[in-house]
């Protein structure tokens, strides 16, 4: 049996994952309302909780949050049986993997949220362009790729800036870092 302190920490981690998951769903709802030229082209604001989670959780809960984001998004927007879900799943997990590897590999002193956000958005959009080539556009995907990737860079920088400001100002975030321990070197 786990010691009481470990059990408390596990419960706190679980609750934090659930809360950040809810925040993802909320941002997904806002994102869903924003008009877009193609159903799967999103600005990626729902990735914000994932970026905040980078310094809070180890790999397991972090990717669990990514799964909640993707499946919850599919349930909220009703896209679970569509290509949109496939795009969202591939995009979220590729960006989550890249962001986690970079933040843990390089450390928070070497790479900030702007860098992590930009590379994450680029990774996500690149995977989505590849999927779009297979399922939607065929060869024409090469014409969609430049504006789509450029949009990724812009939203990645924007989200990174927001994250930097949020982590400095947020009382909730500071209490979570104190309780769960900053996971980055």
């Amino acid at each position, binding site marked *: 049996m786990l010691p009481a302190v470990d059990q408390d920490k596990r419960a706190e981690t679980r609750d934090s994952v659930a809360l950040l998951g809810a925040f993802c769903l909320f941002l997904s709802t806002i994102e869903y309302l924003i008009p877009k030229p193609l159903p799967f082209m999103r600005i990626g604001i729902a990735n914000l909780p994932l970026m905040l989670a980078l310094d809070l959780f180890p790999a397991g809960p972090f990717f669990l949050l990514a*799964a909640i984001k993707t499946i919850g998004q599919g349930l909220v927007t009703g896209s679970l049986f569509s290509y949109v879900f496939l795009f969202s799943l591939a995009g979220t997990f590729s960006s989550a993997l890249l962001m986690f590897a970079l933040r843990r590999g390089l450390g928070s002193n070497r790479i900030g949220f702007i860098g992590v956000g930009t590379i994450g958005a680029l990774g996500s959009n690149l995977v989505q362009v590849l999927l779009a080539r297979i399922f939607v556009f065929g060869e024409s995907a090469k014409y969609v790729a430049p504006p789509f990737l450029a949009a990724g860079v812009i939203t990645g920088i924007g989200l990174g800036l927001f994250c930097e400001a949020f982590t400095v100002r947020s009382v909730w975030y500071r209490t979570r870092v104190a309780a769960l321990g900053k996971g980055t070197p």
Partner: protein
Amino acid sequence: MKPVTETQIESTHFFIPPRERRGNAFIHYFPSKALFISGLLAMPAFLFNPSIASRCAQFMLFILLNWLAGRKLNLIPLCIASAGIIIFNLIVPYGRVLFTFGGWRITEGALWAGIERAVTVEGLIMLSRVSIRSDLRLPGSFGTLIGESFRYFERIMERKGGIERKDPIGGIDRLMLELWAVRSGKVEASKETRRPQRRHPLIGYAFLIPILVGIWGVCLIPLISAGA
């Protein structure tokens, strides 16, 4: 004279819009699990349908089902997205040239490929929207965790007015602190919000069977006729 009950007063004073009425009836007749399974069964019949014409027929059926389910049908974004997919497919020409448009060759192969992809993408979205409802409960510990997220999500949706545009960081922070503070009482809250199992009339299940047969029939007819 019988006294007028509160329910009767409510029913005469509050007008329920037709779309909401259809939505409520859909929730009453169709359990979310049955819809999920039906959607799962219908998906291959749509995705692997070899005929564009019958795929279009399935697409129209999905639109009709969305209408019956009281889902909001935004046809303009649907048309814009479909046109976008078709136009991007036309960029790379292949097949017989149908006509030229300011030096741009519109080819038959690219046009059909664009239409097929547009119908598939939009059709899957329509099928998904009608068969996935947010009250669908997933099994296991992951299902429990996602359920907790949905409970927090409901609270966020109740308080979203609290996030000011002028200070989104402060607003989000206050919201997170507030939700974190009530988490100690979440067991009670979850008991409060746990709704009793809804009983769905059998006619709902019975109605899903002919729909599925229709969707599969539309897919199988061109396959059988091609074989014959």
